[in-house]
């Protein structure tokens, strides 16, 4: 009865991921598996800071590991980006603290 996470509907959509060290990575979901490992195309990281507006760092094709015992491996909140909402928010004006890392 172990169906994977219900991410089928999100394949080829633009999604945003919060990793367990508190980074936000935005990209196109190409694939996933039962352990929530993810393939992300055209990805970029959005860096939030309290001093400057949001920075976007281009990353290209990424595999993000879903499950692990090591601190550097990643777990996530995956959200489908609403394109309209995303255009409306002017990223250069948003200032915020970066997200905290996940502590188990």
């Amino acid at each position, binding site marked *: 009865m172990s169906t994977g996470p219900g991410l089928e509907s999100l394949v080829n959509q633009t999604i945003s991921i919060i990793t367990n060290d508190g980074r936000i990575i935005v990209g196109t979901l190409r694939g996933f598996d039962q352990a929530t490992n993810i393939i992300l195309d055209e990805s970029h990281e959005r860096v939030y800071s309290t001093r400057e507006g949001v920075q976007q760092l281009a990353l290209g094709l990424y595999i993000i590991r879903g499950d692990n015992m090591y601190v550097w491996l990643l777990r*996530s909140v*995956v959200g489908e980006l609403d394109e309209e909402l995303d255009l409306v928010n002017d990223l250069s004006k948003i200032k915020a603290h970066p997200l905290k890392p996940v502590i188990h």
Partner: protein
Amino acid sequence: MLFFSYFKELVGKEVTVELKNDLAIRGTLHSVDQYLNIKLENIKVVDEGKYPHMLSVRNCFIRGSVVRYVQLPPDGVDVDILHDATRREARGS
């Protein structure tokens, strides 16, 4: 399996999921799976001023292992039924 069944009963209700990185997300429970991964719809981040990181996200999938709390509507909980189910589960295992 008990909480998996319990959350399946709560699909469609509004819940607030608090994560282990202190982020709290309110939304309608769309689905849950055996790992207690949660899908929420029409989400609103609690304290949006502090966490603008998800402004453009409407629905989300939350990995079960990063959830700290799931805050439930008080009328969504039938305590007696939950009591019985836990007693049965405790006897069975």
